[in-house]
């Protein structure tokens, strides 16, 4: 890729750590990889965990630190879900890449340049099972001269035989203080000021996802200037205002179906994501103390059903209306079974 103009990159890219030691909060993997830099030994790796926690960053950083800019291209193969990774591609591309010998491992300057190549399979959870199976053999055949880095969000989507060949590292969501440190660093570089309240808001709206936090920060900085408040961040994060969730809950309590339907229509017209509405409704329901556990259970069950349906692509309005209807029936102690369903 051509050298990039710094200024034309969004902040998430601009502030992507270039060195493994700068990856925040993932101490275990940082320790192992720092060791790798000294000994040049490296097992196959499997990184998994939620979005925006540093998986891709870490893999790219170690690859760069091992080989340096000159050898990088010939030693590192990065395949991600945007490349076709059917069985054939896995067989041919990886074979072609792995088969070319690397020669002896000669240290070049600061770069250890170990005598193996690295294949980074980012977003490996979207590979088909067949393709993953095809990889087993390839991994064995070239085990002397290649190291695989698998990266994914869901470890359960990686077939056991692959997972068991790797050293596994779970990337954890970033806690508030770590996130705040990183954010403060960026604010420093960009000449922004944020107060502690804003920092804590940022961490809660981005739910441990640092990429999201950085994007919100940049959005807020562009929209509201260099002094950023908690309110600015909430507004760019698209969180649903409390009043809206509370109005829905109150409508359920009232027992008036038409009123509840009106509130649901309002949520849809305002464009609030229903998946997020469900999450916020869940917090309200769990938090209130004037309803029984059984009522809570009924509501949570319907939230869970709707969540699954949404993932399957079901309609947002219909799902929310169903949840609201179930919630109303639970709160108003209407029977769980329908009367006319035969």
């Amino acid at each position, binding site marked *: *890729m*051509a050298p*990039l*103009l710094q*200024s*034309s*990159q*969004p902040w*998430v*890219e601009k502030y992507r750590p270039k060195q493994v030691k700068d990856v925040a909060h993932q101490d275990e993997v940082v320790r192992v990889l720092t060791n790798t830099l000294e000994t040049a030994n490296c097992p196959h790796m499997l990184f998994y965990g939620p979005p*925006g926690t540093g998986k*891709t960053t870490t893999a790219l950083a170690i690859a760069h630190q091992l080989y340096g800019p000159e050898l990088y291209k010939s030693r590192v193969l990065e395949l*991600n*879900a*945007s490349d*076709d990774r*059917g069985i*054939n591609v896995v067989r*041919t591309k990886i074979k072609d890449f792995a088969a070319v010998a690397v020669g002896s491992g000669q240290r070049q300057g600061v770069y250890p340049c170990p005598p193996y190549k690295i294949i980074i399979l*980012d*977003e490996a959870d979207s590979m088909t099972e067949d393709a993953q199976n095809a990889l087993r053999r390839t991994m064995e055949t070239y085990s002397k001269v290649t190291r695989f880095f698998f990266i994914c*969000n869901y470890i359960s989507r990686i077939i056991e035989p692959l997972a068991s060949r790797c050293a596994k590292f779970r990337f954890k969501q970033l806690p508030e203080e770590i996130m705040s440190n990183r954010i403060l660093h960026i604010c420093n570089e960009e000449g922004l000021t944020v107060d502690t309240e804003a920092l804590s808001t940022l961490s809660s709206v981005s739910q441990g996802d640092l*990429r*999201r936090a950085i*994007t*919100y920060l*940049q*959005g807020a900085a*562009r*929209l509201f200037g260099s002094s950023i408040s908690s309110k600015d961040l909430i507004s760019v*994060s*698209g969180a649903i205002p409390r009043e809206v969730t509370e109005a829905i809950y109150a409508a359920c309590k009232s027992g008036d*179906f038409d009123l509840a*339907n009106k509130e649901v229509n309002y949520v849809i*017209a*305002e*464009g609030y*994501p*229903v*998946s*997020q509405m469900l999450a916020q409704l869940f917090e309200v329901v769990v938090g209130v103390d004037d309803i029984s556990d059984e009522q809570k259970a009924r509501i949570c069950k319907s939230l869970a059903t*709707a969540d699954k*349906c*949404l993932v*399957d*692509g*079901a*309609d*947002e*309005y*219909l799902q929310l*209306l*169903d949840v609201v*209807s*179930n919630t*109303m029936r639970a709160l108003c102690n209407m029977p769980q079974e*329908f*009367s*006319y369903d*035969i």
Partner: protein
Amino acid sequence: MLWVDKYRPKTLDQVIVHQEIAENLKKLVTEQDCPHLLFYGPSGSGKKTLIMALLRQIFGTSAEKVKVENRTWKIDAGSRTIDLELTTLSSTNHVELSPSDVGFQDRYIVQEIIKEMAKNRPIDTKGKKGYKVLVLNEVDKLSREAQHSLRRTMEKYSASCRLILCCNSSSKVTEAIRSRCLNVRINAPKEEQIVKVLEFIGKKEGLQLPPGFAARIADKSNRSLRRAILSFETCRVQQYPFSSNQAIPPMDWEEYVSEICSDIMREQSPKRLFQVRGKLYELLINCIPPEIILKKLLSELLKKLDEELKHEVCHWAAYYEHRMRMGQKAIFHLEAFLAKFMSIYKAFLIATFG
């Protein structure tokens, strides 16, 4: 030209609704480092209008010189090559397409197009390398695979290619994609705002609006600006000068749905079900999306039912819409919903009236 197109604001300064968002968008693109954007909101709320005005803000009038092309992609999928055809709209600095139009093969399109765009990076006036913009419509309809394909590409080529994604329901866009964009919510305009737009158009067309007329159209529009403008134009065609009690005609297909509802409330029998099947087919043939039909059916039924039945019927609507999404033939599930309704309603009638 239809009024919806004729009076679509061209620049961020001209918008009548969403003025605040327009101002914000202007600030967002003052620097070269704008993040990817995801526009979401209900149909007819003005997403597309804002996106086009934003492109114009970034690239100037050249963004308006678009050509429509039917492009074919030859995809090398290992053992075979796949030909994919898709309509694209493009100017020198941007490309717009709806990859979900090619169905489950949409991932090939997103894979190819971004790499292709990243390769020919434009040079801006100051001699700096600028970025191109790829507008993807209906990203909520993209397959999982296509959405997964976008993830790393969005990061990798972000210096040369910025994405503007557009969709109705952001719940259907994966977390990973949402986490890579600045999310811009475009809510449906309030009725007062719709009235403002209608009055603006009325003035431009030199029309005399009776008091309360625009408000009545807005009230019937379900907060969709597009729909309000369309029915305004229909009214103009049907009768001018307007009279203050002039009827606001519903859409043809909606009347049809109302008929179906009356049919099934009057009689619940296999014969009746067979009759309405024909009507459902008619709607589907006219390209009314099945989930829209189902929602309209529900809303018509809810107007007429007892409180207790409302809960049951809305539950089954949600249930069958989900099944419809998982299945293949919409007609089965629409009909199943109607059959379910008939059975519930009949049981209710018997229990109530014997």
